[in-house]
C-alpha cells in the first residue's frame, strides 16, 4: 500500500559523526516537512582564531575533526601561504598530497566498511558484519591501518597530525621510512579492488537528482590541495571568489549553517562531485575498474557513493605509491613563510568534499578574521532535498524500511556534523 501520512522522527542518527536527528512528515501523500536537525552545540572555532598568530590555524583548525584533520591543516596552510605570497612546490607539495592520500584512505574505508555497508547488508554496525563476512571486515581493517600508517609516518600521529607547519613539515621522513609503506600499500591495492567489486554488488535504491556537482579541478591531477572551484553547470571560479558565489544561512532546525550558491541554490560536494568533474584525471586502472563495476564517468545516484569512495581510495593508494616511488628527501622540509598583512583563501578536498578557508591577518601576523566552510554544511540542503525526493518516490515501502532508507539517504554523504558546527555568526542590532 502507499502511505498517505507519515511522521518519522529519529532523535539520534546512528553511524554519522556528531549529533543529529531526522524528521520527515508526509500528509495526504505529500511530503510536507523534511529536516536534518543538527543539535550539536556550535564550537566557535572561527572566534578562537581571532587574535592568534598566523602560524597557529594549522594546529587549531585540525582539532575541528578527528577524522579529517589533514583537510583542515591543508586548507589553512594554503590560505595563509597565499596570503603571504608563498607557493610550495616540488617534494614538499608531493608530501602534502601523500598526507591527504592517507586521510582519504582511512576516512573513506571507515565509512565504506563500518558506516555505510551495514545499510546495504542489513546490519546495525560494522562489527555485526564481521560475523558473516570476516574476511571482508579484515580487509577493511587492513586498509584502515594502511591509511593510518601513512598519516602517522608523515604527520607524526594518525589523528591530529603534529608534523605539519606553514611552508611544509617539521621533519621529512627518510626514503627508508617510506619504503616500509610500500608493501602494505601494494597489498592494500589488491584488497581495495576486492572491496570495490564487493560494494558494487549491493542493491542500490533508486535516487537521482539534477545535482550541481561542485569540486576542485586541477589541469593535471585528481584534486587534493589545488585547483579552481568548478561545477558541472559552468561554475569556474578562484577560491578568492567563493564567498561571492556561496552564501551561508541560519536555519531554525540546525546549529550548522546551510550553504547555497547565489541564484543557483543547493549544491553537492564530495566524492560524487569530484568524480564527475575529474573522471578524466583518474588513472586508467581506476577508470577501467569503474567501467567493470558498471559506473560511467558521472554517477548521480548518491547510494552509489559507496562505490565511488572505493574508487577514490584506490586512486589514493596508487597516488601514494607513485609519490613514494619518486621520493627524494628535500634539502629542507619547509620553506619560510614570513608574515604580512592581507587576506588569503584556499579550498582543498576533504574526504567529504570541498573545504574552504579564508583568513585576514594584520601587520603583526595576528588573525583579524577567519571563515571556514566545511563540506557537510554545504551538503545539508542537498541531503534534505534527497530525503524529500526519496520519501515522495517510496511511500509504498514498509514504514520501517522507509525510515531506515531515509537514514541511509543521510549516510550517503558521510556527514560530519561536528565539523559543520564549528561556526560563529554574530549579529549585533543597534537599538
Amino acid at each position: 500500500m502507499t502511505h498517505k501520512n507519515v511522521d518519522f522522527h529519529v532523535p539520534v542518527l546512528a553511524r554519522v559523526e556528531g549529533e543529529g536527528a531526522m524528521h520527515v512528515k508526509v500528509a495526504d501523500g505529500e511530503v510536507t516537512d523534511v529536516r536534518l536537525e543538527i543539535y550539536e552545540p556550535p564550537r566557535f572555532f572561527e572566534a578562537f582564531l581571532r587574535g592568534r598568530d598566523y602560524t597557529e590555524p594549522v594546529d587549531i583548525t585540525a582539532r575541528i575533526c578527528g577524522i579529517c584533520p589533514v583537510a583542515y591543516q591543508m586548507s589553512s596552510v594554503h590560505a595563509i601561504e597565499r596570503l603571504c605570497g608563498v607557493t610550495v612546490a616540488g617534494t614538499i607539495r608531493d608530501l602534502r598530497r601523500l598526507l591527504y592520500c592517507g586521510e582519504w584512505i582511512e576516512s573513506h574505508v571507515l565509512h565504506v566498511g563500518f558506516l555505510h555497508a551495514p545499510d546495504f547488508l542489513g546490519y546495525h554496525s560494522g562489527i555485526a558484519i564481521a560475523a558473516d563476512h570476516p574476511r571482508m571486515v579484515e580487509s577493511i581493517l587492513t586498509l584502515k591501518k594502511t591509511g593510518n600508517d601513512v598519516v602517522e609516518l608523515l604527520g607524526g600521529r594518525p589523528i591530529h597530525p603534529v608534523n605539519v607547519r606553514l611552508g611544509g613539515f617539521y621533519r621529512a621522513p627518510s626514503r627508508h621510512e617510506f619504503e616500509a609503506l610500500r608493501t602494505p600499500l601494494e597489498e592494500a591495492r589488491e584488497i581495495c579492488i576486492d572491496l570495490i567489486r564487493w560494494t558494487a554488488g549491493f542493491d542500490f535504491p533508486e535516487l537521482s537528482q539534477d545535482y550541481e556537482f561542485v569540486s576542485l579541478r586541477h589541469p593535471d591531477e585528481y584534486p587534493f590541495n589545488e585547483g579552481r572551484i568548478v561545477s558541472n553547470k559552468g561554475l569556474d571560479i578562484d577560491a578568492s571568489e567563493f564567498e561571492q558565489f556561496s552564501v551561508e544561512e541560519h536555519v531554525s532546525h540546525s546549529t550548522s549553517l546551510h550553504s547555497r550558491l547565489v541564484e543557483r541554490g543547493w549544491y553537492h560536494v564530495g566524492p560524487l562531485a569530484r568524480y564527475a568533474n575529474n573522471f578524466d584525471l583518474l588513472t586508467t586502472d581506476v577508470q577501467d575498474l569503474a567501467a567493470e563495476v558498471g559506473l560511467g564517468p558521472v554517477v548521480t545516484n548518491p547510494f552509489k557513493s559507496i562505490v565511488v569512495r572505493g574508487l577514490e581510495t584506490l586512486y589514493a593508494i596508487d597516488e601514494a605509491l607513485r609519490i613514494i616511488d619518486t621520493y627524494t628527501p628535500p634539502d629542507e622540509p619547509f620553506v619560510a613563510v614570513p608574515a604580512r598583512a592581507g587576506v588569503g583563501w584556499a579550498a582543498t578536498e576533504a574526504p567529504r568534499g570541498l573545504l574552504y578557508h579564508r583568513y585576514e591577518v594584520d601587520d603583526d601576523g595576528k588573525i583579524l578574521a577567519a571563515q571556514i566552510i566545511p563540506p557537510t554544511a554545504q551538503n545539508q540542503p542537498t541531503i534534505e532535498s534527497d530525503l524529500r525526493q526519496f520519501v515522495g518516490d517510496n511511500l509504498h515501502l514498509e514504514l520501517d524500511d522507509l525510515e531506515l532508507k531515509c537514514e541511509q539517504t543521510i549516510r550517503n554523504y558521510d556527514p560530519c556534523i561536528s565539523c559543520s558546527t564549528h561556526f560563529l555568526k554574530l549579529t549585533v542590532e543597534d537599538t
Partner: protein
Amino acid sequence: MATGERPPPRPLVIGVGNRDRGDDGVGPLVADAVRGRCGGSVLVHVAEGDLSDLPMRWEPDQDVIVVDATVGGRSPGEVSVIDALADGLRLESGLLSSHGIGLAEAVELGRILGRLPRSLVIFGVEAKRFEHFEPVADEVASAVPDLVERIVALVGKAAHASGHQRELLDRS
C-alpha cells in the same frame, strides 16, 4: 626454531588515550616510558583515537599488554587488571562519535575475526579528570613508575613463554 620458521613476535605494549585530555594521556605516558626502558625488545604502539585497526596490529602468537585510563569509581591512580581473553570486556562504548570504536569493540572485533593475540592483559589506571590540555593529575601520574616496572618485568621475564597470560595475571 626450525629453519625458515618465523621468530615469535616481540611483546606488544599499547598505550590508549589522548595526550591532550588530562588523565586520558596516562596510557601513552606509560607506553612512552616502556619504550624508553625496553628499547627494541618490545613493540610499543600509541593509539590516540580510533582503535578499529587494533586487531590488525597484533599477531595470534603475540603477548599484548594494553594500558588505558578507566572511570570506575575507584581512587585516582588505582590500577586494575583485566584478562581480556578470559574475562572479556563489557561491550559499552563511551564514544559519542560513531566514526571510531573503543577498546571493548576492538577486542570483540578481534574475537569475531579470530584475530586475538595469545595473551591480552589490560591495565586500567583510574582517572580523575579529562580537561583539554591539562596534564595527567598528580595522583594518576604517581601510579606510572610502579606500573611501568610491572610491565617491564612482565614482558622481560615471561615473553613468549607458554602460559604467559596466566603468569602475567598471577604476578600483577
